């Protein structure tokens, strides 16, 4: 029997990017806010100390800072005819855990989606006709426009101190930036990162091919910075330990560096760590949330009543919490009805690896967001007519790291061990670079999330089941992108190239991307969305759900910039809601 705690104004589930921002903005107005986080408290000096942080085995290979699958995982299958089995060990994606969430271990690539991405269905049909839409798709326009989100992107970038170069300032194209981006109201808060030799070659080659390269926007910041919350950051040192690691330099934007120092001083804020929220509690008629139930580290159950419930876990776990709490109608792929779990999407990865002669790329001098990119093949920045697919990719030449357990490239055909392997590793470490395409994945009737009938977590609750595979549209797009990447790698002067195509079923084994989206999407129609345009539950109006679970389909970019913008967008709506609690959009 859960013991009941004193009521709070706001309970927040999960203390990552979205949870910490909302906690700060709400508690500074005097509201009593409690954030409940299932992982431990983590901070730079204690947990990502310079004497412990740069440890590839511990963090990169054994996944020390990630959610442990023992605590929670998912089951997966490629299609509904198969039996889903648990992801026993993370591979394809790496969910975070603890205070800071995935904002601790991310690479920091902080993009704005393109204006066309927000109305992709209407736009594609207007330009190409219905015939371009892939079979079985659930592609939906977003319920917000780029212009509506722009001020919120700007705010998020300012809190993070993002390093970059504007390509479009108030409609005027700027040299050196991304000419395809939506109009920005202001320049990036800090200048772009220093680029390395591979990026220099990429930039020259892409320009010679008539493309438009630029330094990609980065949360590994280039200069010292103080953000609007008074949190201070130091310049990135290109140490090469970003992705999968906490930053010991206060150089990577994270809840720890950008929000928590301010948040923790708010006297009406409290965090409870090592406490797993098991459900959002509802009133008898199911129309209002009364708070949450959680289990603490000793296994004791507590009920935390609150007037407002903000679901701020990682996208996949937001969806599971809604399913376990009975908020919104679960998606049924057979009848193509219901909404929770609908429109799960992911991303494609493809590209080309170039092997060079007589170069020293120094891949260890790197950062999660170091890289030059181009958007000529993203979204609808190019004519899709001849290709017959929807979507696109950002193309990047980057070094996130040269950590040698996982990075010791050899050309195809090299033995996997022995003296010949050793020689090839020795000869190639400095001479390899990759031109990669991070591609969009559309939403489909057959890609979805629901509760698994067999496998349970340690608290006895069903795991979530993921049914996902790449569809023909995505394979076609990713493989076309791989050829574009190879053209660029060749123009860079690669002696030989290897094309990395998207073949075979999606697998949980090799790392691909942690950009899992959808399942609790926002929209204008309650029949095809869980949330209204303010990320408010259609069914339970004092529940708001943050994160990439709201994306109707995925774009060819890292999602965090858009997740942050949506958080500030929703925050304005939450302020309005608090004045007069109600459904902000009539269904």
């Amino acid at each position, binding site marked *: 029997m859960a013991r009941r705690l004193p009521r709070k104004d706001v309970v927040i589930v999960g203390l990552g990017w979205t949870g910490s921002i909302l906690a700060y903005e709400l508690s500074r107005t005097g509201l009593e806010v409690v954030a409940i986080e299932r992982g431990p408290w983590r901070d730079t000096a204690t947990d990502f100390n310079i004497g412990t942080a740069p440890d590839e085995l511990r963090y990169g290979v054994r*996944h020390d800072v990630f959610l442990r699958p023992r605590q929670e995982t998912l089951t997966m299958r490629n299609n509904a005819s198969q*039996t889903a089995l648990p992801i026993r060990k993370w591979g394809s994606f790496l969910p975070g855990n603890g205070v800071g969430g995935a904002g601790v271990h991310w690479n920091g690539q902080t993009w704005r989606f393109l204006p066309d991405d927000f109305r992709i269905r209407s736009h594609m049909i207007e330009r190409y006709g219905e015939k371009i839409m892939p079979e079985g798709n659930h592609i939906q326009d977003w319920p917000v426009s780029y212009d509506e989100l722009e001020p919120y992107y700007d705010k998020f970038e300012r809190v993070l101190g993002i390093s970059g170069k504007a390509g479009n300032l108030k409609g005027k194209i700027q040299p050196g930036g991304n000419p395809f981006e939506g109009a920005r109201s202001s320049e990036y808060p800090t200048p772009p990162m220093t680029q390395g030799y591979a990026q220099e070659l990429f930039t020259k080659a892409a320009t010679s091919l008539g493309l438009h390269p630029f330094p990609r926007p980065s949360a590994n910041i280039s200069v010292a910075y103080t953000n609007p919350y008074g949190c201070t950051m130091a310049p990135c040192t290109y140490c*090469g330990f970003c992705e999968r690691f906490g930053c010991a330099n206060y150089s990577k934007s994270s809840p720890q560096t950008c929000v928590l120092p301010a948040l*923790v001083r708010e006297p009406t804020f409290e965090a409870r760590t*090592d406490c797993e929220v098991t459900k959002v509690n509802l009133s008898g008629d199911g129309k209002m949330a009364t708070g949450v139930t959680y289990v603490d580290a000793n296994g*004791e159950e507590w009920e935390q009543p609150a007037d407002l419930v903000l679901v701020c876990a990682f996208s996949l776990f937001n969806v599971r919490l809604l399913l376990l709490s009975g908020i919104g109608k679960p998606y049924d792929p057979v009848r193509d009805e219901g909404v929770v779990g609908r429109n799960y999407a992911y991303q494609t990865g493809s590209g080309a690896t170039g092997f060079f002669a007589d170069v020293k790329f120094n891949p260890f001098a790197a950062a999660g967001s170091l890289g030059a990119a181009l958007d000529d093949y993203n979204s609808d920045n190019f004519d899709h007519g001849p290709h017959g697919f929807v979507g696109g990719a950002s193309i990047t030449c980057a070094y996130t790291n040269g950590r040698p357990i996982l990075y010791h490239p050899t050309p195809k055909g090299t033995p996997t061990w022995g003296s010949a392997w050793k020689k090839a*590793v020795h000869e190639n470490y400095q001479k390899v670079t990759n031109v990669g395409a991070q591609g969009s994945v559309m939403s489909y009737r057959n890609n979805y999330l629901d509760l698994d009938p067999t496998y349970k977590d340690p608290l006895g609750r069903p795991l979530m089941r993921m049914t996902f595979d790449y569809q023909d549209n995505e394979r076609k797009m990713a493989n076309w992108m791989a050829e574009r990447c190879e053209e660029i790698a060749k123009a860079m002067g690669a002696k030989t190239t290897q094309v990395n195509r998207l073949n075979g079923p999606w697998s949980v084994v090799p790392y691909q991307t942690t950009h899992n989206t959808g399942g609790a999407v926002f929209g204008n129609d309650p029949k095809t969305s869980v949330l209204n345009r303010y990320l408010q539950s259609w069914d339970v109006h004092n529940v708001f759900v943050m994160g990439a679970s709201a994306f109707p389909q995925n774009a060819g970019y890292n999602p965090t910039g858009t997740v942050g913008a949506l958080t500030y967008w929703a925050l304005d709506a939450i302020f309005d809601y608090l004045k007069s609690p109600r459904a902000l959009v009539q269904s």
Partner: protein
Amino acid sequence: MTDMNGRLPRGGDAAAAARRKHAGVTRRSLLASAALLFTASGAGAGVVTKVLPWKPNEAYPVTPVVPGGYLFFTAQEAAIVDAFVERLIPTDDLGMGARDAGVTTFIDRQLTGPYGGHDWLYMQGPFSDKPLPSQGLQSPLTPRQQYRSGLAALEAYCKANFGGRGFVELKADEQDKLIGAMEKGEAQFQGFSSRMLFSAIYANTMEGYFADPIYGGNRDMVGWKLVGFPGTRYDFRDVMAKPNQAYTLPPVGLQGRSAWGGR
């Protein structure tokens, strides 16, 4: 938090210990600042309010592996692993191989920690006997079980097929041929997948050869020197300022360098 330090697992869970530790710290902070909240929210939660939890020297360091003897392997198992990893990464004109780099010690200590029991992984059944390749790891066998049973099966296979000789008594080219057959899953061991044993030793050898020397392998940073990885210097702004030039400083590990008294 971590217990990757090569000690035998003790009763209880490292994560739970860390939770208690966190709770302890915050409890102290809390008593100083807001004692009422403590009684309100229960002892099982780490409660943070008003101040960041902080105690000097609270970083969770790795306990360095001290080479010498084996905690998991028997002498015979260690000899087989020594011989095996030496074929995967041999000593040659490019430097020490995996055996001399301490990879067997590395694997031994890893097997005694949480990795060896798959302590952090989802190990609830049922275990499917027909998983799809796309579904990844589905075996109920922990790394400790894989090594114990797998090495015994390898040894039995050698004795039966090489005139009573064990793996360490095979000639290098016989070992290479057998390892190649294990990699392809073509060697039929009694009661154990030869490919599973190969995969375990192969993955752990790469880890041990290239991981920080604090874990017992990569002696003298030989793996890092092979590729030119400078280790944990953590600041390469000088490299960014001088593109396409050789990096000349020697590598540094979590314990510094031998010239500084580290290993």
